[in-house]
């Protein structure tokens, strides 16, 4: 289980600054929700932690070590394209197990795959189904099973439920929480990208609110043990509602600020012209 340390992390695509001076320290076993509007750089931050983008040395440490490339120590669940469509759903888990546990017998891999399919409430009949034959929710269940099956200390989730209907989304949120909490002390560190305040409240032990591009952290909130909101009670809990409103207000203010600066920029440009 890894802690993650971001120290003055900056990142630019070509010359456009996307992330500007991000500082964040998380402990092993935290469930960190990166919350913010679309385009605020939260997915870029996740890609940097995954090793899919390169940061300057020393700015990003996972488990005390700098991130240089993608690794099986960090599993990523994407919104789409999580599974290879030309492999059966079961084979998608199998190939991950083969990479992680070199030399493991095929029968053993199948056993583990079926166990994880059971954990995500899919029966054996789904093993040979192609991703094309599955619903969006079932595909994401397999992606979650694959991520947990290789047992990485760090789990990165990039708006994994963004394209799902409300009911499926709730069910999968509960599944992820259940799987994360199940292993107790050994639980994984999770970074979960979302633009939904409610999703962040339901899932995260820590909420990191990111402002518009170039992105920066504008607010963080850590729930004390036992204070984490529950889906059933959060809407009737004044403390949670106060936090929810506060987060929404901060997002609104950030958007207004961005719009204002864009208008000023446009007016300045017109004045020059």
């Amino acid at each position, binding site marked *: 289980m890894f802690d993650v340390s971001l120290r003055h992390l900056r990142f630019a695509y070509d010359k456009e600054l996307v992330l500007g001076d991000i500082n964040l320290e998380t402990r092993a076993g935290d469930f960190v929700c990166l919350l913010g509007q679309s385009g605020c750089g939260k997915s870029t931050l996740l890609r940097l932690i995954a090793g899919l983008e390169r940061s300057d040395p020393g700015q990003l440490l996972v488990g005390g070590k700098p991130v240089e490339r*993608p690794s099986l120590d960090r*599993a*990523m669940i994407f919104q789409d394209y999580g599974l*290879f469509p*030309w492999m059966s759903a079961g084979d998608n888990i199998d190939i991950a197990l083969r*990479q992680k546990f070199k030399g493991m017998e095929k029968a053993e891999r199948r056993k583990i795959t079926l166990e994880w399919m059971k954990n995500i409430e899919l029966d054996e009949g789904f093993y040979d189904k*192609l991703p094309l034959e599955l619903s969006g929710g079932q595909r994401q269940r397999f992606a979650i099973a694959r991520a947990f099956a290789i047992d990485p200390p760090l789990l990165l989730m990039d708006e994994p439920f963004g394209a799902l209907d409300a009911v499926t989304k709730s069910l999968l949120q509960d599944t992820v929480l259940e799987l994360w909490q199940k292993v107790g002390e050994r639980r994984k560190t999770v970074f979960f990208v979302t633009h939904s305040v409610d999703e962040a409240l339901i899932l995260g032990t820590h909420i990191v609110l990111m402002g518009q591009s170039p992105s920066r952290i504008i607010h963080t909130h850590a729930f004390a043990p036992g204070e984490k909101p529950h889906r059933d009670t959060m809407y009737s809990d004044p403390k949670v509602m106060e936090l929810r409103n506060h987060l929404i207000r901060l997002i609104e203010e950030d958007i207004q600020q961005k719009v204002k600066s864009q208008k000023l920029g446009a007016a300045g440009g017109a004045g020059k012209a």
Partner: protein
Amino acid sequence: MQFFKRYQGVIFIGVLLVVGYVLLTDGFQVLPPFLFPSLGKVVRLTPGYTGQLLEGLQSSLFLLVTAYVLAVAMAISLGTLIGLKNILRRNLTPYINAFSAIPVPLLTPYAIHIFPTFKAASIFLIWLAAFWVILGTTIGAVMSIDRRYLENAAMLEMPPRTKLFRVILPAASPTILVGCSIALTLSFMMLAVAEMFGAKSGMAFFIQYYSDFARFDLVMLGFFFVSVVLVVIMHGFDRLKARILHWTLNN
């Protein structure tokens, strides 16, 4: 019964074509009988020339299969490499564009001069016609693989060999197979050109040979035979394609 149900549209169009031909020839004699012989006459000729046609088929298939298989293997290997390596692509693209633009039939004299036998020269020309198409589509296919598949493979720390066979080639296969399909048709056309010089047998040779003697009844028989062979081969190819692409929406 299921066969007829599945292909009823194909059979219907085929019947229409036959009826149309019969009407235009025997029926109303619109088409000159010298160039467009009666269908009955062509059918009656078939048993007498079956041996010669099958011998031609064997000879043509040898040229076609050898050249096509070599082209597929070489073009997919090279195309994948070029598609993956930016430096190769940057340096080779102008030459690929330049050489692939040369119409292959124009290279016939060079092939005859360079290669020791007619067969080798023919195989080279058919190979070349198929090679450029498959090479181009493979480069394009590999370059346009969705980045997320490659990132998924990177997150699983796939070694290059596993990545190539389990991710890159399957992801690129729909486009590569389109190239292979076009290349197969082009190979057939090039086969006809190749058999026009120095061949002793072959499907196109059969047509060319009897055309020289103005035996258009046998030329027509040759056309029908080539068409049937082409339909059978393309059908087999389509079934193979559907099997490889079983994971896509249209299969």
